């Protein structure tokens, strides 16, 4: 299984880069039958230059106040022991000392309400984080784990804001069924990993981070 998995990644990594974009589809376990197994963290083999290229410490923030951020925190900190900082409604000052910013993408009305933010305020907050990250020369990972439920108009607006400034985008398959991320990443020249499960997103993340 693991060999097959690595082989698939390698094969896909050799696909000629069209429009300088790298689109990797990780169809590891077969999308029709979700696996109940625990994939091993760090089992993914990434194209040269990407593996281990994201410096630590990192910081997890949301773009849209989705509760998916809490899942990504478990993925990064509980499973992979990456010790990312975490604040779903972080302001730029929270990024101080971090070298990688991870945006968890997805707009949630409930989340916005709980944070006391309007959508417009959330957009401004995300823009301010992007500016702060760029000024500090931080790397940016955007991750979308929420499937089609986190692909409404508001989510799409935030995705369109974050993806072009990201160094890499990780998407759990259901969120890219319409090819939205594929198109956006292709146009923005950003590497995209589409994975079948949240656990697989963790494998990609584990391989990206510097040891």
């Amino acid at each position, binding site marked *: 299984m693991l060999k097959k998995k690595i082989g698939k990644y390698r094969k896909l990594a050799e696909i000629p880069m069209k429009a300088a974009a790298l689109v990797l589809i990780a169809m590891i376990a077969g999308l029709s039958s979700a696996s109940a197994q625990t994939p091993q963290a760090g089992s993914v083999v990434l194209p040269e230059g990407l593996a281990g290229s994201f410096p630590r410490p990192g910081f997890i923030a949301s773009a849209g106040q989705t*509760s998916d951020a809490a899942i990504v925190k478990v993925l990064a900190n509980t499973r992979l022991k990456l010790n990312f900082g975490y604040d779903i409604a972080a302001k730029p000052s929270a990024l101080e000392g971090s070298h990688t910013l991870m945006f968890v993408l997805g707009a949630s009305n409930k989340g916005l309400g709980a944070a006391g933010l309007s959508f417009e305020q959330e957009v401004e907050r995300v823009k301010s984080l992007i500016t702060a990250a760029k000024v500090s020369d931080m790397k940016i990972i955007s991750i979308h784990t929420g499937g089609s439920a986190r692909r409404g108009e508001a989510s799409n607006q935030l995705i369109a804001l974050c993806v072009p400034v990201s160094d890499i985008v990780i998407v759990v398959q259901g969120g890219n069924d319409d090819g939205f991320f594929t198109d956006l990443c292709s146009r923005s020249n950003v590497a995209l990993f589409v994975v079948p499960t*949240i656990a697989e997103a963790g494998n990609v993340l584990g391989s990206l981070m510097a040891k």
Partner: protein
Amino acid sequence: MQKNGFAGLSRRLGAALLALLVFGFVLAPSAFAADTRKAEITARNGMVASAQPLASAAGLEILMAGGNAVDAAVASAFALGVVEPNATGIGGEGMMVIYLADRKLTIAIDYRSMAPLADMSKVKFGNEGHVSVAVPGTVAGLCMALEKYGTMSLAQVMAPAIRYARNGFIVSETLAQTIKDRFDPISKNEALLAILAPEGLPLEAGQIMRNPDLAQTLEKIADGGPDVFYKGEIADAIAADMARNGGYITKADLAAYRAIEREPVRGTYRGYEIVSAPPPVGGLSVIEILNILENFDLAAEAPLSPRNIHLMAEAMKRGFADNSAFIGDPDFAKIPVAGLLDKEYARRRAQEIDPDKVTPKVNAGTPPEHPSTTHLSVVDRHGNMVALTQTLSGFWGAAVAVPGTGIILNNEMQNWSARGPNAYAPGKRMRTTIAPTIIAKDGKPFVTMGTPGAGRIISTMVILAVNLLDYRMGVQEAIESPRFYARDTEKDLSIEARIPEETRKALIAKGYSIKAYPEFDLFFGGAQAILVDLDTGIMRGGADPRRDGAVFGF
């Protein structure tokens, strides 16, 4: 055709259920009404419509074994607590309306949750954690219904639920999404996290969810009856977990809990009799809104014409305003039931509506003085009917599970109002909008229906009644028809995206601001309904594609 989630269960269980379903489908031909996503299921001998295929299968299993509608409803309700644990369970509560054909009697069982007896007036309840939990009523209510009106033993009707909890079931996309949506509070509770994220990450669609602790708990209830839950070792576990975590529920609270048999609220709409759940829940408001709408000829225009949406939205807002002003626990406040159901009062409320423009601010009316959140529907071959709506309040309730029991607790304490008939008091039952309803013609019940959906329950029930009775839609078509929702306290008219652009423009011209949701959105609830053709006896069942609803019959 219908969704099912049988793959992944043990081979023996799977084969048994498959056989059951094949049998069910053979005898229950289905047909797609125009433009419906799901088939309308027909049957002659019994039918169950619930929010989850396995729960419907549980009810069907009981009906086919000779049980009556109450037996089947109780079986499906316990099963729903296992396979739709985000929305219901034995840590929650509900209300059911039962029609007994041989006695021509309709009764309601109130098993709404209750505030603990301690003074919590200084507590900020919130919507998560132990302080948000009210004393659960589900076990008391289901056991009362079975004992008084069922024919089978608790062990018989609970068997499917116990099986599902032990062997597991496939997680649907809907269920997986609800876990993700509340993962932050879920991850703070170790016992709940162990159920919903056994390997650390939330269960995803296609994975198997098992709850062996819950299987054991259900077995204890099946063996020892409701006292095990309210006075025995399960009560001990709940009280101990509360004490450890700053909660207020004690063993005395649990021991004091009673399900209450109440008189349903009754009204008429265009010659049909509407029988629904009484205060402290929303049936009265459903009837009040229908009474207002009776003053307009809705059938004169197409179902989703701007005029009809406007009239219904205005009626809904008045119903909601009166709901907030007048409805609470009838044991603590005097509810003007007869006044709110008064046809003349409804006529006055209807006259307030300007057909051309939205009313900017709707206030509660002055009803005359008179002396005086998952849903399932079941019909059996004797004509008995059950409409049952249960809830944990929010999805995953308080995001708290009782260690060692598999029980997920409600967050009903968030439903108190700051003042008025629904103000908090110790031992009181809070108001909600649930409204399981039975409709009859000339004294013969022929529709059982209901929906979850928080504030949208009342509006969705009105839309269902209007779709069936004014527009003569088939039951599946009535359920799938695009929904909308208006409330006195909300500035937007919420609609599903299938409502066309030109209609939206016409509504904006009347003064509405529109908030569009996706084409089929669970924000608007997940209705289930069964309609019996009074001439032929054929049962027609519909289930909501907005959630994982399924209808089985034989």
